[in-house]
């Protein structure tokens, strides 16, 4: 297993990536926080614009892969505006529970307001937390889902280990994240298209820098195989991934073994 704050950081142990920039480890969470404070109110609109609406289908498929049933406890990590919590809340029903968690207060506020406006309150809790140190007892959740969030975590290995710890034996973790397209043509088209995001971001939110970070952070994120091995290193078993749109995104699934090795 990799040491703390090293595998995803640059060669210098005290620095890490923030898009293409190299920043001190202690500064990354704050810089990412600024990005999401800035985009929180227009986050859903921008998602629809950048993905041309396809993010809804990808999220739908991710929920199908979760296998969540009535009465289960689910952690929607980096849940932001609550897209997954809405779906999970209906699946777990009144006997289950969903915890919508995000490190960013602005995103969490947008998510909480949105859920309350939809009348979803009976089985949802809200927590502001750092994914690297989840403040829950071990073996708490049947399913943990982190969608488009792991990329922004400073120490991804620590986050995966923390997720593994709070997952119940037999429970599963899902990581939905941008990944590496398999096909060169898809890759080139995608690169060209994503280069437009800062311009669209500037027009819609008045903030091009946040979307420049988004594009850069996607490029710096580990590919499918690397993330799978990171999950295995964290202790997950039966890890697999589903490429979405030719690898533009990938959904990784891993299970906590029923018995400790």
């Amino acid at each position, binding site marked *: 297993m990799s040491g703390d704050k090293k595998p995803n950081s640059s060669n210098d142990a005290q620095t890490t990536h923030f898009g293409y920039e190299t920043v001190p480890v202690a500064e990354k969470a704050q810089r990412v926080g600024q990005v999401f404070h800035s985009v929180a109110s227009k986050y859903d609109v921008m998602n629809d614009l950048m993905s041309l609406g396809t993010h*809804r*289908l*990808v999220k*739908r*498929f991710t929920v*199908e*892969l979760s*296998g969540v*049933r009535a009465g289960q406890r689910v952690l929607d990590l980096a849940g932001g505006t609550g897209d997954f919590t809405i779906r999970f809340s*209906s699946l777990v*029903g009144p006997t289950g529970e969903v915890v919508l968690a995000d490190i960013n207060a602005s995103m969490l506020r947008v998510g909480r307001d949105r859920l309350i406006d939809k009348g979803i309150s009976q089985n949802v809790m809200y927590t502001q937390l750092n994914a690297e140190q989840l403040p829950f007892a071990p073996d708490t959740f049947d399913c943990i889902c982190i969608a488009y969030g792991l990329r922004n975590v400073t120490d991804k290995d620590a986050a995966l280990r923390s997720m593994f710890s709070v997952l119940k034996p037999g429970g599963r973790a899902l990581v939905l994240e941008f990944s590496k397209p398999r096909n060169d043509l898809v890759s080139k088209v995608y690169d060209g298209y994503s280069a437009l995001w800062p311009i669209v971001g500037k027009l819609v939110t008045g903030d091009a820098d946040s979307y420049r970070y988004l594009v850069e952070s996607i490029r710096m994120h580990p590919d499918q195989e690397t993330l799978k091995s990171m999950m295995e290193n964290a202790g997950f078993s039966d890890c697999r991934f*589903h490429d*979405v749109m030719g690898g533009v995104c990938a959904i990784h699934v891993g299970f906590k073994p029923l018995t400790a090795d």
Partner: protein
Amino acid sequence: MNEMFTSSLCAPVEAIINAVLKQDPGSALQLQAFRGKVLRVECTSPIKLIVHLVVEEQGVSLRSVFEGEADAGISASASSYAKLLSSDSQTGALFSPAVAISGDTHVVQGLHRVIAGLEIDWQDHFASVFGDVATHQFSELVSRAKRWGKSSRETVLDNVEEYLHEEARLLPSKSEVAHFSARIDELKLRLDRINARTQRLGARVNDA
């Protein structure tokens, strides 16, 4: 087929069914009798597709990935499903040889009854926007258009049939086909009799 692709196909279908269910409270109530039930729907052609229909509190959910055991299953081609949803006779359509049913047939019949019987009271929604008078005028217009469409279709079909049978003589009429089939059957029977007689005479010659 790719599960993500199937899931994407399910999304609009699920949205339409649930939207219609919202407009048809009677069917939504009937559906709740099957809450928690899962139907495995398999399409055999033109594309192979497996979808699980799960009855939930808010309507139905269509899933490309389902890890549990389905309560019932139905397998047919896309054209058979189309017939199934448009047929007046539920039993005739559901238990035709083109449709394979497994598991709890009560679930299949019940869900088929609800989904095939979905009906929206368009007039009610129209009236809430445009008022009763305009709605009445509009529905009269629609009814007249429907009646005209139906009678026009029947007239066109009758004329085409008559032209093909009687004037152009391109196709035989039903009675001509029946007469021709009867003559063929008669000919076949005569040939069979001749064949049997030939064999009988051949056997006598061999004996002699």
